[in-house]
């Protein structure tokens, strides 16, 4: 059992479990599954700076901060108790492409050759971590949600506006991964 749990879980196990988060949160407290709003609550709590968008009672949304703190703890538990001893398996075509950018370490779920503290001092690392993170925070809030709020909750509720947002997430990702990211990784 534990050995089975330590392997990477297949999509048909993980996907339904993630889908069940939607009714779970609705039924245990009328909460709508969405993660990026936690970033807004952190702004409202720490640095509202008289910006109207952050002038609301964030304490009413504190459940969301408990939820994301749980995700952080879940990450610790998964690595401490259920770690996969094998390197991450990736498509050979991707591995061949990444090799040309000097990425060949598959010990962690993120490529540690490009995502590490010293790399922040180089333009490549700055773009990958700082600019990338900024786009995630700015884009999700501008779109009104992320993968959880729009792609999963919104589509579950049959909202066409969430379908528009989800398609745009994917279009943006395809453009970046195929056309722009190779240039960044070559820096």
């Amino acid at each position, binding site marked *: 059992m534990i050995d089975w749990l330590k392997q990477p879980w297949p999509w048909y196990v993980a996907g339904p479990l993630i889908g069940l988060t939607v009714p779970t949160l609705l039924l245990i407290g*009328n909460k709508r599954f969405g993660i990026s709003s936690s970033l807004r609550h952190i702004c409202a709590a720490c640095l509202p700076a008289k910006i109207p968008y952050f002038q609301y009672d964030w304490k009413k949304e504190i459940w969301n901060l408990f939820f994301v703190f749980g995700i952080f703890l879940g990450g610790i538990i998964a690595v401490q108790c259920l770690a996969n001893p094998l390197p991450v398996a990736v498509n050979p075509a991707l591995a061949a492409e990444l090799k040309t950018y000097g990425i060949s370490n598959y010990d962690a779920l993120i490529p540690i050759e490009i995502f590490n503290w010293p790399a922040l001092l180089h333009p490549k690392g700055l773009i990958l971590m700082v600019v990338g*993170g900024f786009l995630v925070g700015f884009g999700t809030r501008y779109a009104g949600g992320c993968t959880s709020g729009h792609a999963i909750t919104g589509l579950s509720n049959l909202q066409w506006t969430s379908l528009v947002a989800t398609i745009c997430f994917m279009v943006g*990702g395809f453009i970046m991964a195929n056309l722009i990211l190779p240039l960044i990784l070559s820096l």
Partner: protein
Amino acid sequence: MSTIVPENDAEIRKQDSICTNETQIQHPSWYNLKYLVVGILFGIVFVKAEIISWFRIQEMFRLQSFHMYGVIGSAVVVGMVSVFLIKKFKIKTIYGEPVHFDNTPFNKGQIYGGLLFGFGWAITGACPGPLFAQIGTGATVTIITLLSAIAGTWVYGLLRNKLPH
């Protein structure tokens, strides 16, 4: 905080379509621990299914693996059936409240913001949820990515009135 007119509070929160959870019942704050438990289970799934993996996201955007499409697709199907059943049978919360659904009105932000988030997703290999889980797995430098995402959210709030919606 004290400057807010209470009637406006819900309206301001609703500018963000994702955070309009309104419950009339007041609970002690330790009730929030149930969301912590759901978050922990969710975080374990995130890591074990490698959804937080930069490599899986690259495969998804290069059409080199079905994994992420399977995860998101089956999550949406399960979510859709669940929401349908909750609406159809008017299932109430464990506290007996009716379940509340909001429909998001369209605005251009879903296009512009969606594209920008897509760029960020492909660069960092993470949407907001996986950022928290990645830090938990020991990738401490992701703290910088998360702080930058918080900064991005803050700048959006600052510029909101000047952006096309």
